[in-house]
């Protein structure tokens, strides 16, 4: 009497079951991988702009302070992008007819604003306030990375909520003295200094993880 199934099915059957399990876990892992991949987070992926503005040149090269352009950063929720006027203060003198700067001159002439592409974009239901972070001693580079090494601006952090919470849970590891907030210098984690700064800035850690701190 012939067998309904050939011998190989004895390996095939269990193997296929195992395969299904592997496939499922692979799918889950893949999902996770995608979510944290540069594709989804866009970390380290320069965003093209109408004017290829180089922070590297302006910050590292010319040593211009962040606040020269991002005027609101100490007082307002928004750091602010420089008005065309700000660009023109220098570029009406130097690189007056660099083709690269044509859009800026256009904007100045026509009164049409420059269209910059957002690099750091939070969802609308997240209310981030630059000023308080600056006031309490969170350095620019904690979130924006070493812009002094960025010819074109790119995200250096995922800006995922879990990333925010990492710092809101333990701010001490990310605080720096007030005079170093705008300095392009990587922070050296130092438990003692962190706690000291925490006390100095009167930061109340308890409510830092409240939903209401960021969501309204």
């Amino acid at each position, binding site marked *: 009497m012939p067998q309904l*199934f050939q011998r190989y099915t004895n390996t095939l059957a269990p193997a296929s079951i195992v395969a299904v399990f592997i496939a499922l876990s692979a799918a889950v892992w893949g999902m996770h991988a995608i979510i944290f991949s540069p594709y989804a987070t866009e970390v380290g992926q320069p965003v093209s702009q109408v004017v290829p503005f180089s922070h590297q040149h302006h910050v590292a090269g010319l040593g211009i302070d962040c606040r020269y352009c991002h005027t609101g950063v100490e007082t307002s929720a928004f750091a602010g992008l420089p008005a065309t006027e700000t660009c023109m203060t220098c570029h009406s003198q130097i690189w007056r007819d660099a083709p690269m700067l044509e859009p800026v001159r256009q904007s100045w002439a026509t009164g049409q604003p420059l269209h910059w592409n957002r690099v750091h974009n939070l969802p609308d239901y997240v209310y981030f306030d630059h000023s308080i972070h600056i006031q309490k001693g969170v350095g620019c580079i904690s979130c924006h990375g070493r812009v002094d090494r960025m010819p074109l601006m790119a995200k250096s952090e995922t800006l*995922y909520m*879990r990333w925010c919470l990492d710092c809101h849970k333990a701010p001490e590891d990310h605080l720096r003295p007030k005079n170093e907030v705008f300095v392009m210098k990587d922070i050296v984690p130092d438990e003692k200094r962190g706690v000291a700064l925490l006390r100095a800035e009167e930061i109340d850690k308890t409510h830092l993880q409240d939903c209401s701190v960021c969501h309204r």
Partner: protein
Amino acid sequence: MPTTVQTCETLSERLSAVVLKRPTKLGWFTCIAISFTGVLMLNVAISWLLLRGVGVWGINEPVAWGFAIVNFVWWIGIGHAGTFISAILLLLHQHWRTSINRFTEAMTLFAVACAALFPLLHLGRPWVFYFLVPYPDTMRLWPQWRSPLVWDVFAVSTYFTVSLVYWYIGLVPDLATMRDRATRRWIKVIYGIGALGWRGSAKHWARYEMAYLLLAGLATPLVLSVHSVVSLDFSVAILPGWHSTIFPPYFVAGAIFSGFAMVLTLLIPFRKIYKLEDVISERHLDLASKVMLATGLMVALGYASESWMAWYSDEPNEEFLALNRMLGPYWPVWWTTMTCNVLVPQLLWWRRIRISPLPLFIISLLVNVGMWAERYMIVVVSLHRDFLPSSWGKFHGTVWDWATFAGTIGLFFTLMFLFVRLLPMIPIAELRKQTVEEGKEV
């Protein structure tokens, strides 16, 4: 029909024939066609729901839960008979269960599947349902474990998985029988895959039986827990009419009550159509009705104690609620519930009714209606007038509410018809054992 003595051979022959006989009867096609139109309607209703939002239903403030939850509880309740019969009655050595457990387990699965649709659909944002599942997300957030809805997610999914496994394991030896009795090769192969190469080895049987018993042991507390958890959706809340400690037992009793009602609603026609009156005999009807009668009385006790507590507690809100149910705008719901769930089942005291299919069929239908009304009373009537008179309101189901409900009924019957056509609805192997052993006893 001839009452010839059953042998393993004849038994296997007859029971597998139910599935293997060709060509399929026209009646079956018409039935499934009708129920499938229900499925199509369900699709339309769901699409419209996802397109416009839950606002297409009648829900509002204060009645933020309507048909969706009513149907959910109703279906889950129906889904309790199967596991009850196969697990608890197994442990209680009720051999008569064997004839109907496979069928009722299938019923359980499909009912739970229908039920599981509603919690998903009633979400304002169904596309983020996965927020209820614990997993390491990008937000470092977790479900809120204190919420009965999260308990539901675990209870219902566990219940479904375990029932599915239990049902499938029970099927394996019969699938082997199908494999061996089928004539066409491709059919043999399909059943063969399901049979996992079962060959009836004695050692396999031993482990199999042990596993089956263990599953029964696990399913027994599970079946009791599931509807208890569902009842906690209500009793954890502070709403008058919800906030009650008797809910878990009272819900479980109601579940088995409605479950057996649905079992009878389905069995009575099926045994007639497939001429299985000898396998599913009067005895089965009789015993099933007795279970209905018993659980029905427990449910009645539930109603009674609710009203009594309202009076005894002297809590104005509770008192008002009790009266509002009987005399308020939704009085017909209360009276329907009482008639169908308390009065009608009393007929089952008479044996003649317990064993005569037609009256039994009607009674079971009425009980199904009554149990739906009960859930409507619990969900809607409690919500529509709560603490502050200023926020009182009314609720009316829209056409989409009804379409969704009817659609799930269609889905349920579609699955049921497919089941009886494609799988042995009566456990052959177990019956073999019984017939042989009972044959000996005689």
